[in-house]
């Protein structure tokens, strides 16, 4: 075979390999979702899934109402903490972040995003469980808030930096003070990116399990007091998966399907929202 033909053959081989790779990369999610849907559909369509509390072991039926409420409460409180603070810090970073404090904050924030999620559980435990003497949903919210903070912070800063400088100049040339230009012109212009960042962080928090293991512990019953342990959907999936009762395992699949739906829809909505706002 001539040298050129050999090279072309090699090229085609490599192209084939690359296509194999991308297929291999894209297939897992399809398989995952297929199984979750197939195994979770019976459970999620069963009557009472959304409205009932879990039944005792051995008793068929039941639902995850407590877990749904728990997820909303835990993630809700965490968001109330992380979103305003994270957004403000992001705004400040984009305005005044060219100094040493700014670089330190960005560095710390990047390191925090790479930490194992269980470390946030340890943080929540030491700070709020050991001190208060009991497990609570609040401690989980605190752990999740610290987990969400760097994500929101960086997303906000990135969104603000993307706003063209001409807008800033236009505002300043009208005689507006710097803080006014930032808050009234730049931030509204970047709102799409900021909201997206917040939504993505919330979706991430909703799916977390490890930070909750020793902060909120979980609860089989409906609990509305954030000072007490609460269950969440992710915890339900985890616990039910490890129990050798098929009815509970089926509930785990159903809860997993619900969780995947919530998280995926939020993710998709967030990305669509950006594209719509950036008309």
């Amino acid at each position, binding site marked *: 075979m001539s040298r050129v033909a050999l*090279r*072309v053959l*090699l*090229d085609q081989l490599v192209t084939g390999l*690359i*296509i194999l*790779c*991308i297929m*291999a*990369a*894209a297939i897992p999610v399809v398989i*995952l*979702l297929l*199984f*979750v849907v197939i*195994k979770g559909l019976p459970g999620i369509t069963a009557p009472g899934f959304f409205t009932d509390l879990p039944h005792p072991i051995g008793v068929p039926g039941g639902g995850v109402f407590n877990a749904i409420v728990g997820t909303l409460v835990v993630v809700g409180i965490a968001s109330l903490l992380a979103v305003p603070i994270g957004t*403000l*810090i992001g705004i*400040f*970073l984009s305005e*005044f972040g060219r100094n040493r*404090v700014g*670089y*330190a904050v960005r560095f*710390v924030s990047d*390191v925090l*995003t*790479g*930490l194992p*999620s*269980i*470390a946030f559980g*340890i*943080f929540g*435990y*030491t*700070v709020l469980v050991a001190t208060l003497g009991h497990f609570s949903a609040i401690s989980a919210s605190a752990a999740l808030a*610290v987990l969400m903070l*760097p994500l929101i*912070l*960086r997303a906000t800063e*990135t969104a603000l930096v993307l706003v063209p400088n001409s807008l800033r100049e236009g505002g300043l040339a009208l005689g507006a*003070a710097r*803080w*006014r230009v930032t808050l009234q012109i730049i931030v509204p212009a970047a709102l799409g990116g900021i909201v997206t960042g917040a939504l993505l962080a919330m*979706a991430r928090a909703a*799916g*977390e399990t*490890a930070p909750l*293991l*020793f902060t909120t512990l979980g609860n089989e019953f409906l609990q509305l007091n954030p000072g007490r342990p609460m269950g969440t959907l*992710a915890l339900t999936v*985890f616990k039910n*998966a*490890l129990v050798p009762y098929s009815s509970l395992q089926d509930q*785990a699949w159903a809860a*997993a399907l619900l969780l995947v739906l919530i*998280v*995926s829809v939020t*993710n998709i909505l967030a990305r669509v929202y950006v594209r719509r706002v950036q008309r």
Partner: protein
Amino acid sequence: MSQGTAETVVPVPPVMLRHRRHRVDGDRIFQCLAISAGILVLAIAAIFLLALFVPALPAIREFGLGFLASRDWNPVSLRFGALPFLYGTVITSLVAMVIAFPIGIGAALFLADDARLPFIRVPLSFAIELLAGIPSVVVGLWGLFILVPLMRTSVEPFLSHTFGFLPFFQGPYSGSSYLTAGVVLAIMVLPILVALSRDVIRAVPRSLREASLALGATKAELTWSVILPYARIGVTGAVLLALGRALGETIAVTMVIGNRPGISGSLFAQGYTLPSVLANEFTEATGKIYQGALFELGLVLVSITIAVNVLARLLVWRFKGASEASVV
């Protein structure tokens, strides 16, 4: 256009010599709030580290550095060591990277190349992004009920028969193993590896690419001799970031690894990782030493991941040359 005369009454200029502090300076307040916010973040990070470190002190004092090399894990006699968990963490992450790296680079090459099948690129890219959003407990659920039986009945027997001469494919298998955990981890780190590598490869200047192609190189040769060498540093950074993610992954691994503290040369064996032992035993630990040992494990885990992450960031920052590397 004659010169004006000095006796003309000039209206009071609105641009007065007004001192900056005459009215409340919103900008000053803004700046103060900014610094405070920055300090708040640093304070949270400091508390975070302290929250991990302080409770670990009893164990650190008790075991010293030998902790890292000890294979003991006995809550009754209070003898603890980190080695089995270190081993498990490292092995599973290595297996994950060995699987994910070639697939990830190949996928990244596909996605970074604008010329390849544009209609398929978007859904494929979307699929990988979607994978990133799937909670680890769901992946673990699938791993436990689908992958583990599959490994036990098909994959591991196959590997044992065909590659049994290799030491790590020997021994009994049950489905829950370092290998299974490695596969699950590979699935979890694939999105971040692909996304970062794709950005890095995209950053290779067009002029280099075009010059190479204009000389008559095939795409494969272009990739091998131009793109990959240029992107070497950035890709290494991406790999390290993915590795950092793999090291810290807790839930999915816990559900498929068998949770047995021990060290085995076989990939089919059940094992334990640092995050998994924390997840399983934290709430049951009693006494300062036992708890302290677990906290110390947490400290070891966090230290390793911070080190890997910092190294990765340094590499990625150096490659991108920017002071604001975007976070994935």
